[in-house]
């Protein structure tokens, strides 16, 4: 049996449990990959048994944040553009007992927020950060981003982008994050597993998801607004770590690696170290 039902009485179980009903449907464009990643994140939250009482959603500014802000039924702390990691630092250092799932975008994290991103990785701040990488500034109408491909036509690169894109996972690994992974929006189960691993790993978990923006990236860069075509294009640019082993450097040119880059469980971060530090220095 199948029906097209009346919304008043119907609700997805994950929405019923974790999202604010009055804020749904969220404001993502049709076909936007952010919704898929949020869906995977909620599956992870559910499987881990996290609750609105012990988990806070943290955001910056941009599609990553406008879409996720005030949808979580618990606390939502949305920072200024680029400052999500600085805010997450203040929150986690004050409440090390709570879980923080942080959403950011390629501009929010890779451009204006670059410095805070680097230092959060260096400090190995014990939060889980999910980077929605759609290769463009979506919310503001389609400007070039640090992760836009070379040659991309956007509203601020009408003649084509002459800069190389930023590999933010490499930066996260280099700066010291404990867990770093990259997936595509259609790697649903892998994203959910990564979020679970991230929450369970001490230190910064940085999970980048390459996802489709049919409205801006699709229309300006790929000349299509069909979400499935944007997904297909993303898949064509990517190659798994395993498959990459079989390719030569020449064949690898222009390809984006995906998979788990690092998962270290022995590097402590600022949160645990500060607890130890206080034991030594607290007098009163």
């Amino acid at each position, binding site marked *: 049996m199948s029906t097209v039902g009346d919304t008043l009485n119907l609700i997805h179980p994950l929405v019923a449990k974790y999202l604010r009903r009055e*804020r749904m449907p969220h404001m993502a464009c049709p076909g936007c990959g952010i919704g898929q990643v949020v869906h995977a994140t909620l599956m992870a939250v559910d499987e881990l048994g996290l609750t609105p009482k012990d988990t*806070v959603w943290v955001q910056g500014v941009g599609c990553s944040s406008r879409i996720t802000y*005030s949808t979580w039924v618990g606390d939502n702390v949305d920072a200024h553009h680029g*400052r999500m990691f600085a805010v997450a*630092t*203040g929150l986690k*250092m*004050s409440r090390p007992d709570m879980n923080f799932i942080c959403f950011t975008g390629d501009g929010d994290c890779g451009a204006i927020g670059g410095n805070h991103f680097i*230092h959060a990785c260096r400090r190995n701040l014990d939060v889980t950060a999910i980077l929605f990488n759609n290769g463009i500034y979506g919310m503001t109408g389609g400007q070039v981003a640090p992760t836009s491909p070379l040659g991309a036509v956007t509203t601020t690169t009408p003649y084509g982008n002459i800069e190389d894109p930023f590999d933010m996972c490499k930066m996260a690994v280099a700066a010291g994050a404990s867990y770093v992974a990259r997936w595509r929006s259609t790697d649903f189960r892998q994203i959910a597993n990564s979020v679970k691993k991230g929450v369970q790993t001490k230190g910064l978990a940085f999970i980048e998801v390459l996802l489709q923006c049919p409205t801006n990236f699709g229309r300006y860069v790929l000349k299509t607004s069909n979400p499935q075509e944007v997904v297909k294009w993303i898949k064509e640019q990517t190659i798994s770590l395993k498959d990459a082993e079989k390719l030569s450097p020449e064949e690898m040119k222009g390809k984006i690696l995906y998979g788990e880059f690092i998962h270290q469980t022995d590097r402590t971060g600022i949160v645990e170290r500060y607890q130890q530090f206080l034991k030594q220095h607290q007098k009163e």
Partner: protein
Amino acid sequence: MSSGVKPGRYFVQGDEAIAEGAIAAGCRFFAGYPITPSSETSETMARRLPEVGGVCLQMEDELASIHCIGAASVAGMKALTVSSGPGISLKLEGLGWGIKNEIPYVVVDVQRAGPSNGVATRVAQGDLYTVRYGSAGGNCALIALSPKSTQEAFDLTIECFNLAEIFRCPVFLLTDETVGHTRELLVIPEESELKIVKRFKPTVPPEKFSMYPLETPEAINYPFPSIGEGYGICVSPYTHNSKGYASTAQDVQEKMAKRLVYKVTAHLDMLTRVESQMMADAEFAVVAYGGDARPALAAVEMARAQGLKVGFFRPIIVWPFPDGEVLKVAEKVKKILVCELNIDGQLVREVERASKGKAEVYHFGSGGVEPHLPSQIFNELRRLFK
């Protein structure tokens, strides 16, 4: 949590007194970035905060500091950051987050010679308007206190934290390199003598609580729940309704703007603090604040010794500006000499405005580096008195 108060007599810099005042007020979170002449406060916090179980972080830049302390306050902590002119400029956007979400915390500006990097190690008073009007978008009223001495640096820092909780907003301690770096006596009283305002928490369940009281714009002592208390708080940089949901509606913007302005302007009686000396029979007044206050007072005493009927007036809470008190001074005297360490004229503009033409207002400004000498102010007084 222990109070961290260490009663006694100390010989310390103003910057250190600020740190002790913060700890006495219950501050247990500090995030800052080194910048002369405020670094001594950061250094004192780095030594003292861990002793009382607090969190002290040196962040990667000024912007990280202000966002970090805003977040710490959202997580329930009383929080402090310190900086000087160029760093305050960097913090202004982040300050907007604190203003809009009505987050209590304290920002210290130890002013130095400017503009731009200026003279890092020397005094000036160029940020009066920056702290009040610097954060983009207006639609708010800010509170700033300014000490003249090490003792006041301690006392007013506690007052800043108290006002931050009462008015649920960021509060500035506007000081300068002279006060920050002068070593003098600080008396820290017994804990029982200190008046500390604790954070207000909701007394109603979440479904009945409005995170942002847009319908009662003049409300003070308003609860500020933290994360993890079951209130499902929503904090964001956007104009938002009383729940915290972002809104583009005109009436929401209007209500939010009125809330952020009226909550301060409706309580000017609580926010007026001035120092007045020898004003009873004064024909002439000298107005100064912060590091220029004591030279100005000394000049007034020199004038009195010569038989000139001069009085001294000092705003202690500089924002909201004490319009009413300044008008009283203007109605009493013929001439007002405003001393400050800037050439463009900032305090003098406020005094002129508040005087409503009742007295002649003169500016005795200087680019900074040194505070005025009493003799310089005295000579200017004599010149104008003719």
